[in-house]
């Protein structure tokens, strides 16, 4: 799989999607300054959102967006892995199951029934799961969406054959380096920055908000410690703390345990719009 040698001249790159919003692959097109240089160095062999010229692989590098959410996905990801040298998952859906993984705590059938009049027409798995739960992943870019800087870093690392410098530190570090005033200390705003992996550039605190953890838990994240503090010092109800973790990376540990333990996302309650539910399906 991952070898240390620089990838050979113009590596074949593919970009594919599973259940996702397309935002992470769009980040590639959002590299306005680098895009043309990137395609000089990489041969984009498959990228449906950007080009009609398609190729089935093999891939030197395959960027995988989205979570495994429907039966067909299960075989597809295994097949893609076989054709791929460096498999890179991009974004919270691919690395953590995404926001749609909140349904993993819920009664899937009830969900389906709530949105669709004829649930039996709809095929989806009861759990939305990260790619790494199904195949080996060589590198992951975290985030909802991924950070363009980290994407460029990964691409350049690839061309020089060095390890991409994706730090394993807390968001707080970037906050402090940029001289951002800690929102938790100065405003009492709950913030997941301490337990969240850096990479975003501390956007939320810079914009006066608490971090909502879209880059997912960092190594050895002491989520339990933060939870205790928020509940005790901040005097917040369990469920309110639980909702902090019930976000875009809720399904990765230790956030997952916090959500399960504290609540914060609904479990099996059916809501939805009664009027929609009442609308009869049918053809014109």
């Amino acid at each position, binding site marked *: 799989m*991952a*070898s240390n040698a620089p990838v050979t001249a113009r590596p074949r790159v593919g970009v594919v999607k599973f259940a996702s919003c397309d935002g992470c692959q769009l980040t590639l097109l959002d590299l306005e300054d680098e895009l043309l240089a990137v395609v000089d160095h990489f041969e984009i062999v498959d990228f449906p959102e950007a080009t009609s010229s398609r190729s089935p692989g093999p891939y030197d590098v395959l960027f995988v967006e989205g979570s495994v959410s429907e039966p067909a996905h299960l075989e597809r990801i295994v097949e893609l892995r076989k054709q791929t040298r460096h498999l890179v998952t991009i974004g919270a859906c691919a690395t953590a199951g995404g926001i749609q993984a909140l349904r993993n705590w819920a009664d899937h059938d009830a969900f389906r029934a709530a949105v669709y009049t004829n649930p039996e027409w709809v095929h989806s798995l009861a759990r939305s799961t990260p790619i790494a739960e199904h195949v080996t992943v*060589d*590198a992951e870019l975290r985030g909802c969406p991924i950070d363009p800087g980290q994407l460029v870093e990964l691409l350049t*690392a690839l061309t020089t054959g*060095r*390890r*991409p410098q994706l730090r394993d530190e807390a968001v707080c570090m970037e906050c402090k380096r940029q001289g951002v005033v800690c929102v938790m200390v100065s405003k009492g705003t709950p913030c997941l920055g301490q337990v969240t992996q850096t990479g975003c550039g501390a956007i939320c605190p810079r914009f006066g908000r608490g971090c909502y953890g879209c880059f997912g838990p960092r190594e050895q994240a002491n989520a339990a410690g933060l939870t205790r503090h928020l509940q005790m010092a901040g005097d917040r109800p369990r469920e309110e703390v639980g909702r902090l973790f019930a976000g875009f990376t809720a399904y990765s540990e230790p956030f997952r345990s916090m959500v399960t333990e504290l609540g914060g996302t609904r479990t099996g309650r059916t809501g939805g719009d009664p009027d929609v539910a009442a609308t009869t399906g049918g053809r014109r």
Partner: protein
Amino acid sequence: MNESAALIAALNTSWFASGLSEKAQTHLAELGRRFTAEPGTELFREGETSDTFCILVHGRVALRTLVPERGDITILTVEPGDIYLWSALVPPYRASSTGVAIEPIEAVIFDGAMLRAALREDCELAQALYPRMLVAVARRLYATRLQMLDLFASEQVKTW
């Protein structure tokens, strides 16, 4: 007598027996006999009953074990002064590896059953010998553990 004197001399050069009391050495000399073998001689085989206890005086004995598809692997070499076939003193008295002389060897060897009987009767001998045994085996165990750590293996770092 001459033979036993030679044996005691031999024992004395060994790390294992040098520290033993004179009395114990003499008793051992009575029980033991000299043994030599040419390089390549298979001295004992893994799993077989081991009916002798040996103190290596000269040469080198390789302790090997057969790993299917990897053939015979030498896991340890016994150096002069050390013992081998301690299994002759520990039930079920079966060799835990295969021993091959890889140099011309000289050893003092003891009949397992006789030595065990002697140790039962002669408490002094037992008191002198067993701690040595324990040290020898413990040291081998410790060495094996370190070997298991595979300390010099090259840590391969994945690019990513």
